[in-house]
């Protein structure tokens, strides 16, 4: 008796044909899939692929901003913020405090307003002026470019952020302030638009870090 196929079921010949097609497609597409894997945010490869080299190159440019005094003056290894392009210890003996906003009686907001003081020597300002918190110090001083890259991609050292979550931080008024720092303060070497382009390029190509 001839077997009868029920609707919605493949016979074995058809199943073999479809499986073969899928396998062939996977082989053909493998290089493409690997390239795309390296572009998933937070996915870093060690393949030495062109995407990784591009990612590393992009971060080198990002690092020129992160290592500029406008960023480094608050991303310090101790609890004392710095001031100026010479990165001297903050006057008034200011300290980080547990929440990164100073000690009672000497809070950041006691002097720093939501915008820069108009006079040279007056306090710079931006909304939510602060340092990194004491339990997440995000300390960048003394790090090589590769070490800095690994520090800001490590959730244990970057404030529990995924790599993709770095973008919103880069858009905060405090970070953007670095490009409107007020009188007698230099700006980072890239424009803000160039910086963000390189940050996105670095992340989109796998957020790779040099050794």
């Amino acid at each position, binding site marked *: 008796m001839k077997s009868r196929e029920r609707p919605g079921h493949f016979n074995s010949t058809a199943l073999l044909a479809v499986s073969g097609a899928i396998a062939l497609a996977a082989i053909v597409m493998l290089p493409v899939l690997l390239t795309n894997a390296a572009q998933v945010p937070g996915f870093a490869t060690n393949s030495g692929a062109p995407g990784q080299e591009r990612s590393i190159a992009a971060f080198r440019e990002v690092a020129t901003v992160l290592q500029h005094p406008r960023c480094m003056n608050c991303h310090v290894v101790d609890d004392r913020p710095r001031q100026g392009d010479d990165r001297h210890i903050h006057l008034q003996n200011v300290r980080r405090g547990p929440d990164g906003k100073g*000690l*009672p*009686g000497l809070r950041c907001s006691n002097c720093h307003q*939501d*915008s820069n003081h108009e*006079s040279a*020597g007056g*306090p710079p300002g931006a909304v939510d002026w602060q340092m990194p918190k004491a339990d997440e110090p995000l300390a960048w001083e003394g790090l090589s470019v590769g070490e800095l890259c690994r520090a800001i991609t490590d959730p244990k050292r970057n404030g529990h952020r995924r790599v993709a979550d770095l973008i919103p931080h880069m858009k905060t008024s405090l970070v953007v302030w670095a490009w409107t720092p007020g009188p007698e303060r230099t700006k980072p070497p890239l424009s803000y638009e160039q910086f963000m382009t390189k940050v996105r390029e670095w992340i989109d190509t796998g957020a790779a870090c040099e050794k």
Partner: protein
Amino acid sequence: MNSDEPIKSITLHVNGSARTINVDPSKPLLWVLREDLQLTGAKFGCGLAQCGACTVHLDGEAVRSCVTPVARAAGRKVITIEGLSAEHNNALQEAWIAVQVPQCGYCQTGQIMSAAVLLASNPHPSDAEIDRVMSGNICRCGTYDRIRRAIHRAAESMGGRS
């Protein structure tokens, strides 16, 4: 701060009273207090938040009123040296007199206002803790040792109460 901003009506709660003024919102709080409200206890020192002579309380924080736009204080609680106590008998003021802290006296209202915030958060500060917080207030007469002693004395008389 932009001095070309239009005049606005702003209400501050100063030393327990609501005070409404028509003012350029970028005008420093210090000059509103001194010129518009005739509260001259807070002093102009550097005008750059460097010295602390202008220190007043804004919602309990020791802000430098010379760089604080009055718009920031709108609807908020401002305390000046004149409002620290009704009869000038705050523990800090009494300690300042007992220890004879001032020499010229110009910076002392700012010193006391910062010390009040310190004791509110730390009723028994050590010397190091006093130095750490009070280092934002400069005294050109060099009365720092007496300031420290007066803060300890006030802390003792307050019995740990903030």
